[in-house]
């Protein structure tokens, strides 16, 4: 249970970094890439996949 909480906190942290990255990247391609990379992290965070 503790491991799961730590795991989800790490996921949340990486997800927030990715959202930050979407706004901070300089090219549109990298902004879109960061947004798409967010999908598996969010699905995992919500324990869907």
């Amino acid at each position: 249970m503790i491991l799961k909480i730590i795991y989800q906190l790490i996921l949340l942290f990486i997800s927030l970094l990715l959202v930050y990255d979407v706004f901070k990247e300089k090219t549109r391609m990298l902004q879109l890439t960061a947004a798409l990379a967010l999908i598996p992290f969010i699905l995992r965070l919500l324990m869907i996949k």
Partner: protein
Amino acid sequence: MTNLLKNKNIFPILSLLVAAVIGTIAANQFLFMRKEQPLHPSPALSKIEKLSVYNPNLTGTHGDTDVYFFDSGNPGGTVLILGGTHPNEPAGFMTAYLFLENCELSAGRLLIIPRANASAFTHNDPMEGQPQFITIDGKNGKRQFRFGSRITNPIDQWPDPEIYLHYPSGQKLAGNETRNLNRSYPGKPNGSLTVRVAYAIVNLINTEHVDVAFDLHEAAPEYPVVNAIVASERSQDIASEAAMMLEFEGIRYSLEPSPYNFHGLSHREWQDETRTFPILLETANPVQGRLRGRSDEALIITGKDKMYLRAAALGELHVPFDENGIPLEMRVARHVAAVQKIIATFSEYHPESAIEVNGIPAYEEFLENGLQNYF
């Protein structure tokens, strides 16, 4: 409006919206995989219980599943049929569904757990490219059946250890085998989800005084233990006689002894922890194998694969394989024939615990009518 379009945040926001749409579609697909397809039990059904009755620690988890009870009302023994230990082995769970939807009983009881590892039905094995469903055009229209994974969903049991230490033997296996139901027997009430499911099944066998217990599987055609009846010491007599009788009918099965020192397997631990006669059945399914080509519904249903045809020509397979493949229909027919023959043989040896299951077609009749006529 122009200012808005030039705003540097517009594209990032649009990107997040695109990701949200794709994520929502993906999430819906994954959540849909958790929805159980309805089964339609035969009129012989007496009751449905949850597996958590036999281990309350399963209550409310994705490991809890239905146990179907068919009681003839007449004296006799009890048979358990387990499908879906590995939900990526469809002949196993389709045979359980077939008994569930078609059986009639005149002596004894029949218990069926069609989705033994219910959590493993809720996802697919990564990197395998296998379909989420198989579709049968049945007598009442098209029906979809979930095609799942060999092991419990990591959403329900995580993380895997580096090395899986089997309880109670201490045997070492690869870490992900910790989510394999057929490496988790006899289980314990408070362990991981898979171990709790295993414990519930063993407890059910003991509580319900199950005389004969079947665990239905499939394996790759290049795997040595295939088209096989795996029997523990207690089951050897009935299994060998049944195998001979099946051979007389042109249905070849090899008889494999349950290994003494490989722990966690259903037949091994049911032998050691219960009084039942344990039997595991294997058929050959190309979708299980490493040599296969495209892994789609057609491969599962027709069992036809060019690569396996080539492997057969090279003598690399343990089963006959020709251009007709090994269709699901034939794999289920083999399981059905073996289950019926073993029940009949057990009943002959133990008339006081005889079990008579009717309404299930014989091998030839089943192949003639087709799988679709029973669903």
